[in-house]
């Protein structure tokens, strides 16, 4: 084992390298590109015995990735944001093929307006596709999740592709110490892929992805996917336990931070959870009994576990770094459904961190105040969209400046 300072992107590349993948179809997009650049270098140097090909689009990239997995290869690919939604059709297709592809998404907010920094509208748009989803907070977790993702995807009770998410910029370009296990240790955890169900060869003719006629046949296959995804909950826990035994790092479907005695809980995901944890510590130092629940396994959604962990709290705030326009926070709705009918705590929905917007400490003070209000008054108010007076003034100032310059230039 060695320890190195790696960016989130480099950690993702290391995950693919240690998984000894056979094939990497690629297409560049910021902020994912460092992953494929790193893999290209290793393949060129002979450090990774894989084939890499640059396709003409993410739609083609995902098609090639799924088709190679359907042929029997272990396949890795990565994209981000516009790329993920450009290839969106193939997410459903590949999941329906039941092939164990691992796809990394480096989260980035979706156009328009076109931008570079992260939120989770890209990855959460894929939540209904059948891909399992693991959301990572740290660079170490990125690498570990990729290794676990192959075990999960290739498990005979699962056989669904896995999407591993990391936040663009905040994690993709941040260096953190990462323990890199030895290749033999990883091989013992993740043996070479031996496809039993989906493969193509002259001695094994197979029709894959065939059409169905009628709702019964379609439903037959979709329900199998649902059952397989449900099975992935316990498979994940088994794999996570083995991972902890071998490598000393454990991951649950969710992570609790200062949760045991917490009266008020904030639910977050991905790299901004690090900010949330810092705020929890600050509030704890003030004597507030606040904790944080970080969502990691988003598909399958661990309803029971979440309901158990949130039961008996005074109030819970879900911070969504996404916006379902016209509805509100996507994860809020999912948490609310997990708690429904169980007499759970009152909830508040907060939307923040869109397009990489940073959270401010004062906002966590306000969230705590809102939780106290929820405890007293219950109800389920409209989603609270974080945006400060000063930010708003800044936007108006920028517009005034632009108008002023236009007037000066006489155009």
């Amino acid at each position, binding site marked *: 084992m060695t320890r190195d300072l790696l960016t989130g992107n480099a950690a993702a590349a290391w995950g693919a390298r240690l998984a000894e993948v*056979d*094939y990497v*179809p690629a297409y560049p997009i910021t902020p994912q590109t460092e992953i494929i650049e790193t893999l290209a270098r290793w393949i060129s140097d002979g450090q990774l*015995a*894989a*084939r890499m*090909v640059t*396709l*003409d*689009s993410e*739609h*083609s*990239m995902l*098609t*090639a*990735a*799924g*088709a*190679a*997995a*359907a*042929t*029997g*290869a272990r*396949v890795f690919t990565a994209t981000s944001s516009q790329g993920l939604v450009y290839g969106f*059709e*193939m997410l459903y*297709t590949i999941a329906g093929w039941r092939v164990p592809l691992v796809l990394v998404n480096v989260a980035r907010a979706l156009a328009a307006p076109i931008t570079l920094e992260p939120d989770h509208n890209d990855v959460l748009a894929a939540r209904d596709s059948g891909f399992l989803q693991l959301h990572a907070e740290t660079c170490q977790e990125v690498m570990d999740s990729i290794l676990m993702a192959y075990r999960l995807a290739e498990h005979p009770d699962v056989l669904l592709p896995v999407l591993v998410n990391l936040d663009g910029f905040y994690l993709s370009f941040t260096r953190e110490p990462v323990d890199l296990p030895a290749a033999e240790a990883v091989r013992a955890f993740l043996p*070479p892929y031996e496809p039993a169900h989906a493969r*193509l*060869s*002259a*001695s*094994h*003719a*197979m*029709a*894959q*992805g*065939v*059409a*169905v*006629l009628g709702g019964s*046949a379609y439903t037959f296959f979709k329900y199998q996917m649902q059952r397989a995804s449900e099975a992935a909950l316990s498979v994940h826990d088994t794999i996570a336990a083995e991972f902890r035994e071998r490598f000393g790092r454990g991951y649950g479907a969710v992570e609790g931070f200062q949760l045991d005695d917490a009266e008020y809980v904030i639910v977050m995901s991905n790299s901004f959870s690090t900010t949330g944890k810092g705020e929890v510590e600050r509030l704890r130092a003030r004597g507030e009994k606040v904790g944080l629940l970080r969502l990691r396994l988003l598909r399958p959604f661990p309803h029971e576990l979440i309901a158990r962990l949130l039961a008996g709290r005074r109030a819970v705030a879900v911070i969504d770094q996404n916006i379902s326009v016209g509805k509100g926070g996507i994860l809020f709705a999912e948490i609310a459904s997990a708690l429904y009918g169980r007499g759970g705590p009152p909830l508040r929905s907060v939307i923040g961190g869109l397009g990489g917007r940073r959270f401010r400490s004062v906002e966590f003070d306000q969230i705590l105040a809102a939780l106290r209000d929820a405890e007293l008054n219950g109800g389920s108010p409209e989603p609270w969209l974080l945006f400060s007076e000063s930010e708003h003034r800044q936007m108006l100032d920028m517009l005034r400046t632009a108008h002023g310059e236009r007037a000066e230039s006489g155009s």
Partner: protein
Amino acid sequence: MNTRREIYKSIKEVPREEFLAGGTGLCAGCGGLLALRLFHKALGPNVVFVNAAGCMTLLAVFPFTPFHSSWLYTAMASAPAGAQGVRDALDVLIAKGKLAKTDDLNVVVVSGDGAANGIGLQSTLGAVFRGLDFYYFCYDNEAFANTGFQMSPASPLASRTATTPAGTPTRKENLFELWRAQQPAFVATVSPAYPLDLMDKVARAGRLSGPKMFISLSSCPPGWGIEPADSVEVARLAVDTGVWPLKEAHGGEVIHTVVPHRRHPVEEYLRPQARYRHLFEPVRQEPVLQQLQTDVDDYWARVAR
């Protein structure tokens, strides 16, 4: 009529083995299916078809497939990218010793003209640009036939489709030349009415590594408005009138493999088809008919130069 056939010189040489069973859900008299059957005979059994959405998608319907070979339905836009993934995976698995060399497959994209000429063109040109070693079989029935015969970029001038009821206002996109511009290993037009020409091209192309395209004019009884029994005859008229030139290119030069020595009038091809009926009834559209004949004459005049 000149022929350059090397492998299939007589109909007796066509293998009796069938790799594509009958009884599929496709329309009676489908010219595309006949061409695919011949194509498969020439290619042999070790094939994986990578399919884009279209008529042929209805060949493999759960839990049946008419193929002795393999099949992977992908999506309408990206079958060539699927072929890339399959080809690369086979190569990598063979190189790593995970798959025996004898387990190798010929990778074949099968799509209609809607995918080949339109939505799938980006992934197609990508695969050709990368020099992917694959076959592309395009059954060109000159419309989105599977969805009820709407206009595609391959619909010919003046032909009626469900979305061009007064006749298609544009000329047929030149897919052959789009391919040839990138100098693929092989690009050819074929016809189900000329089985030896079709099979000989496939067999000769099989000696070459790289992208190999076969565009088959595919007579379509419901879309063209012809009797299933006349399907082959109409496909033959397309060649004999010069409307559908049978040709190939490898390494740049275009070679016409079947040259009708005395071309029949184009009208003989148009008349039997309901999609051209508006050119004859209720009043004869002389300028349009003239234009269609002139287009064909001009083509062959260029070829003869």
